[in-house]
Structure formats: C-alpha cells, structure tokens
C-alpha cells in the first residue's frame, strides 16, 4: 500500500494510504487518511477487513500502534469500517468517532475495547494536541448519517464518498484534468447520492469553508481550482437517479 504525504507542518501531518497493488481482486480500492499530531493519531475510514494487514503494516511505518488514539468512520459501510473488529484487538485506549445513528450497527463489526463517540447530527469537533478538526455534516451523501472531516488550518477536507471516482487501482493521486475526470465519477454520484436537497445544502456550506484539498475515499484528490470546479459540477448534477435516466 502506498503512502502519500498531503501536508507536513510543525503541528501535524496529513497522510493518505491507498493504491494497494496487492489488494484482493473484486474489492473496491479505497483511500485511507491519517492525521498525526505530537502524541496522537487519527485514522480516518480505516477500510475493510481485507485491507487490515496492509493498513497496519503501512501505518506502523509512520507511528507506533499505541499512538493511534482515534478512529473516524464517516458512515457504516463495510469498505469504511469492517476492519473495526481487528483494530479493536490492536488498540487499547482508542475512541471511534462516527454518526450516532450507526452506533448499534457498527458495533456488529466487533467492538469490545474501543470507545464510541457518537457524533450528533449537527457535527462536532476533535482536538488532537493543538490541532482542531471539525466534523462536517454530509448526511445523505450518500449514507443517511455521514460526516466529513475538515482541518481549518490546512484547508484539507476528507470528504468520504463525495468526489469519489471508480477507476483503476493504479490511478494517479490527484485530479489533473477535471473535464476528463467527470465520466469516472458521474454515475457514482447520480446513483449513490439520493438527495438533491442534501447535496445542495452541503455544497453551500462547503463553499463557506476555505477548502484547499478535497480528499475522497475512492479515486483522486482535488486540489486548488479543481475543488471549486468540483463544487460547481456537483451543484449542477441531478442525483438520486435510477433506470433509464441514469444511463442518459
């Protein structure tokens, strides 16, 4: 699994893990993210059970296991958090931050040691050492209880499935040509995202943030002007489509 540094500052680092060439076939490629501060690390959407060994191998090249004090699961999907039962055996005093509506569902993955912090619908924040991270509501995009993580200091937004694209496992890390990237993400957003109202509300709120990098859980990262391009495109896209309208 590859590691890519998105930000390396005095107070913290942002890392992205993904593009695993040894990933089992027929499971979707996923991007995992980690914020490392002085004494803590937050692992975001740590992935499915099939990725656990590769993830832990990659992570301990960056931090000791006991430094992973926080996990974030944007929602309840298996590619997001089905590895929880194994992280639960690996981490002794960690806290999982996830939407409140999924607590009793997520616990089915196995959670005896890790604490659960239920994020309220309105969102919340987490301070790791001196670094404040904000949980941005992104409900119905696609999951009915769903959050992004925003770092106001760096402008990095971990956007979960928003901005996701389905493409080859060895795809580049960053979007380099927005127009040519659209076909890779259009169907995913139209089919997976159920609500135009929720989508437009999210776009409006995210426009007010100073997002410099938009980091989805699948596919490439948007940076610089491509963030604005994505927000414009997403705002104009009709979602919640099925059948013939989806294939148009």
């Amino acid at each position, binding site marked *: 699994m590859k590691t890519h540094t998105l930000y390396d500052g005095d107070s913290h680092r942002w890392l992205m893990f993904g593009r695993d060439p040894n990933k089992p076939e027929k499971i979707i490629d996923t991007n995992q993210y980690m914020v490392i501060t002085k004494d803590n690390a937050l692992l975001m959407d740590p992935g499915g059970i099939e990725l656990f*060994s590769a993830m832990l*191998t990659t992570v*301990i090249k960056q931090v000791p296991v*006991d*430094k992973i004090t926080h996990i974030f699961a944007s929602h309840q999907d298996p590619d997001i958090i089905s590895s929880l*039962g*194994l992280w639960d*055996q690996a981490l002794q005093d960690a806290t999982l931050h996830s939407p409140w509506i999924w607590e009793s569902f997520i616990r089915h993955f196995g959670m005896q040691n890790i604490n659960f912090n239920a994020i309220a619908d309105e969102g919340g924040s987490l301070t790791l050492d001196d670094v404040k991270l904000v949980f941005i509501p992104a409900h119905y995009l696609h999951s009915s209880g769903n959050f992004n993580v925003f770092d106001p200091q760096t402008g990095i937004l971990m956007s979960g499935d928003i901005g996701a694209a389905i493409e080859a496992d060895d795809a580049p890390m960053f979007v380099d040509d927005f127009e040519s990237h659209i076909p890779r993400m259009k169907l995913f957003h139209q089919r997976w995202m159920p609500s135009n109202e929720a989508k437009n509300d999210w776009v409006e709120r995210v426009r007010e943030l100073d997002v410099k990098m938009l980091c989805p859980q699948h596919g490439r990262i948007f940076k610089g002007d491509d963030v604005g391009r994505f927000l414009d495109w997403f705002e104009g896209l009709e979602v919640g489509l099925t059948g013939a309208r989806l294939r148009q």
Partner: protein
Amino acid sequence: MAAHTYSYFVVAAVIAARLEKATRIARHLSITASNARALAFRAGEGASGFRPLTDYIHRLADLTVSSSSRINHLASELSRTAAEKERAERALRHFVDVGERAKDSPFIDSLQPVFERTSQRQCVLRDAYNSQIKLLTSELDTLEGELRAAGVLATMSRVEALQADGVYQQALNNVADNVESVTASIKKHIQSSQTLVQQLTQELS
C-alpha cells in the same frame, strides 16, 4: 453432514442448534406426561397400575427438560466462546503477518504488546473453551444415561396398558409410544451432539 470439513466454531454452533431442538422436543415429553396422568385418572381402577408410571414419566420429563435446557445453555456458551476464540486467533494471524511484512518498520516494536495482549486473551479463551467442552461432554453423557430409563418406562407402560379397559387401552398404548418416540428423538440429537463434541475434543488433542 461431513462435520470434519467445518471449522470448530461452526461445529460448536451446530451443536448448540441441535441441542436447542432436543430441548424443544423434551417439552413434548412434559405434555405426554400430563396427558398420561389425566388418562390414568379417567380410566380409574382399570388403569391403577398405570398411575405410578405417570409419576415416572413426569419425573423423566422434568429431568429431561431441565437437563437439556442446561446443556443447550452450555452449548450456546461454547459457541460464543468458539467465535471469540476464532476472532482472537484471526487477529493474531494478522499481527504475525504484519510483523513479517513490517519487520524493517521503525515502529515494529510497538506491535509486541499488541501481540502479547492478544495471545494472552487467546489463551484465556482457549482454556474457557476446553473446560466448556469437558462440561458439555459430561452433561451429555449424564442425560444419555437418564434417557436409557425411558425404554424401560415405555415397556412397562405397554404392559400396564394391557390391564386397562378396552376404551383406554389404545390411549395408554399411545402414551407408551409417545414416550418411546420422543425420547428416541432426543437421544438421536444427544448422540449426534456427542459425536460432534468428540470431534472438537480430538481437535484439541
């Protein structure tokens, strides 16, 4: 079922399921015992020899129900422990894999306490699993022994039925048949569970 092809935690779940069935069937024996008592009462002097037998049927029913419920509970616990043990073993396999793949990692030492903690938990679960198997084996053997008396009871019931008036004879024979078939059915589940438990015991050694 070629049970040997299944993992131990699946076998443990199969045992729990079979013993749950045995518990349900054992409840039928209670109904049979109540019917037999009512029937012997109605038959009056014509079935006076049958009446004491109904007490034995009742006792057998109570014993079978309580014993099979206890065994069923033990089997469910065994199944839970087996699943937890498998989880710990799976985590250990992952940690070993990570240990090999990340041996040059600067933080590889941080994996050692994780490995030790999980190994310790796996040992605790293995010990619990072993003693649960032993207890289950002994309870199954005891119940099987108790059910042996049911065959004698059915034969005695038939002999006493012969003494009863014609109208009750068939009904009392039905009671004897019920005792025989219900206990045979329970025995079948107990014996197949014993075979599966034996398989788990062999895997331990």
